[in-house]
């Protein structure tokens, strides 16, 4: 009884938004599939959307919640894809059920990627901002180069994986739900608070006794795990698993999903991942032959326009005018505000380029008095 009360006290309707979005997507498409109305190219698209969402949501944990810029997400995906599919190839000899093989290989790929997440999390303890970004980028490229030269993984020919013959998108979306379940639960627990505290002000977090080392590694491990799982899904989606796919360009594409969706905003990541995968898919399949060169042109223009529209300070008035959030808020009575309503997604500052080494910067704080006592540099200045 007490438990139910506790659950009630700790659960808000909006906690379910993301599950509902994904579940509805899955239900609709599955019904279409059952009734034979789902074109196969759309099933392919859905599989791509599913692993994109997993990638975007897990990267959001690092970038949006922990506040560290990572450009190596495709590297974790690469590790997961290669190792997972390698194991899957071996397992196919013993296990006849492709689904079971897929599940086992996802776990294996995820765990191996998580180990790499731990390794790359170690420099994250010492480095910040752009420096960490370049290290993660370097990591991704290193992994790629190594797999390219390993004969056991097919070298330049890539690793021949076995395509999953069933409805991969269904498995994909179930994994998305699992990902959401775990990542959202982390974010909405005391651990999530600790992680966002580190993002907001690392020094203060330390002073509050938050074990920064532990949480940074934890976040990198969890994010890498899911990137690895996404990699295994990718490997079962397309064969061969080829190193060239996992370049830093792909890491950046995942980052684009996170940034467009809003840092620290999981719903945003889901929508942006879906939208970008969809746009890419449409551009690829609609623009055939000579028009293909226009693909990147269109994509680039969309990117620039959307980012400028969303972020340009000069356009804030326009944005305000079209804000659905304002529209929704205005309808709500103030007394209805739940506990702990303040947004996660107003993410600032940690990745400020001008304070590379600084632990954080206080923004929007007109009250900070002039520095009176510059003793911190040890009485010298």
């Amino acid at each position, binding site marked *: 009884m*007490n*438990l139910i*009360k*506790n*659950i009630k*006290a*700790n659960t808000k309707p909006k906690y379910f938004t993301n599950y509902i979005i994904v579940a509805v997507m899955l239900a609709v498409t599955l019904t279409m599939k059952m009734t034979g109305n789902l074109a196969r190219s759309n099933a392919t698209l859905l599989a791509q959307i599913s692993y994109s969402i997993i990638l975007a949501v897990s990267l959001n944990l690092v970038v949006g919640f922990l506040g560290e810029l990572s450009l190596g997400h495709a590297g974790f995906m690469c590790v997961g894809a290669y190792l997972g599919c390698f194991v899957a190839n071996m397992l196919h000899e013993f296990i006849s059920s492709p689904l079971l093989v897929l599940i086992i290989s996802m776990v294996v790929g995820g765990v191996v990627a998580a180990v790499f997440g731990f390794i790359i999390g170690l420099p994250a303890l010492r480095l910040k901002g752009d420096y960490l970004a370049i290290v993660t980028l370097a990591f991704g490229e290193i992994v790629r180069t190594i797999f390219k030269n390993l004969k056991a993984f097919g070298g330049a020919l890539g690793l021949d994986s076995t395509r999953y013959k069933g409805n991969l998108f269904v498995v994909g979306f179930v994994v998305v739900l699992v990902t959401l379940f*775990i990542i959202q*639960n*982390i974010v909405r*627990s*005391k*651990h*999530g*608070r*600790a992680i*966002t*505290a580190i*993002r*907001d*002000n690392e*020094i*203060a*977090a*330390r*002073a*509050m*006794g*938050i*074990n*920064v080392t532990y949480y940074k590694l*934890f976040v990198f491990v969890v994010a890498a795990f899911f990137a690895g799982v996404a990699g295994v899904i990718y490997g079962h989606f397309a064969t061969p698993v080829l190193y060239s796919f996992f370049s830093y360009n792909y890491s950046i594409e995942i980052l684009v999903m996170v940034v467009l969706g809003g840092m620290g905003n999981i719903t945003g990541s889901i929508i942006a991942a879906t939208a970008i995968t969809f746009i890419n898919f449409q551009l690829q399949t609609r623009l055939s032959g000579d028009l293909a060169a226009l693909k990147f042109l269109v994509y680039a223009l969309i990117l620039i326009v959307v980012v400028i529209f969303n972020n340009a300070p000069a356009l804030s008035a326009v944005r305000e005018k079209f804000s659905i959030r304002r529209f929704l808020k205005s309808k709500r009575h103030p007394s209805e505000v*739940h*506990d*702990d*309503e*303040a*947004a*996660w997604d*107003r*993410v*600032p500052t940690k990745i400020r380029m001008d304070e590379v080494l600084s632990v954080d910067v*206080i*923004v*929007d*704080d007109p*009250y*900070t*008095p002039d*520095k*009176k*006592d*510059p*003793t*911190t*540099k*040890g*009485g*010298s*200045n």
Partner: protein
Amino acid sequence: MAEIVLETKDLGISFGGLKAVQNVNLKIEKNQLYGLIGPNGAGKTTVFNMLTGVYKPTTGTFYLCGEELKGKSQEAINHKGIARTFQNIRLFNNMSVIRNVLVGLHNQPEFKCSPVTSMLKLPKHYDTEVRMRERAKEILKIFDLYEERNNLACNLPYGKQRKLEIARALATNPKLLLLDEPAAGMNPNETEELMKTVRFIRDEFDITVLLIEHDLKFVSGLCDEVTVLNFGTALYQGKVNDALNDPEVVKAYIGG
């Protein structure tokens, strides 16, 4: 003789040959309100930074309730019972007020809950969360921040930000609270109120307070004993009222 909460022995630090702080010997008794004052650049915040593990002292050591804490990490020192506020406020700006306090409660043994438990939302997770929130609300009520609990911390007025920082530090259940210029930027009314609050928390939470302050009136109204730092060394140690009569101290403050 009351129990000694904090004791420093010849505490000192140098940055690249420059002796920023040297030979600081403090002895703070339980439930004392102790002041650390001195002119700009005297090394007060550096002492705080050493006591909280931000800097490692190069000489000397310090003890909390008889346990040596020198060389421990910031987190470990906080777990042992030293909490602090910052000179330039360091709140978790993009988190709500209540979440700031909840972060302070993070490490309390009664709210222990492993990440796996939270990931899977086991019953214990809900139980912990509910109890943490209740505790956080109690603390916020004490500081008169309850109504603002769902606002973003950065949207609070300055005085309340200071208070929130103290509330957050207290949530870590410290034995010793370090306040770094708590009254900076406050008007006389707010200062007055702050003095009351500090006394109140000392009694309510049964803690010891060490504070840095410029405002001598504030210090003399609040503290029993002070240490005056100048150029990194202790100029004076003793009763606060006598400090203002000490010629050395006057010289350091007024110059000449």
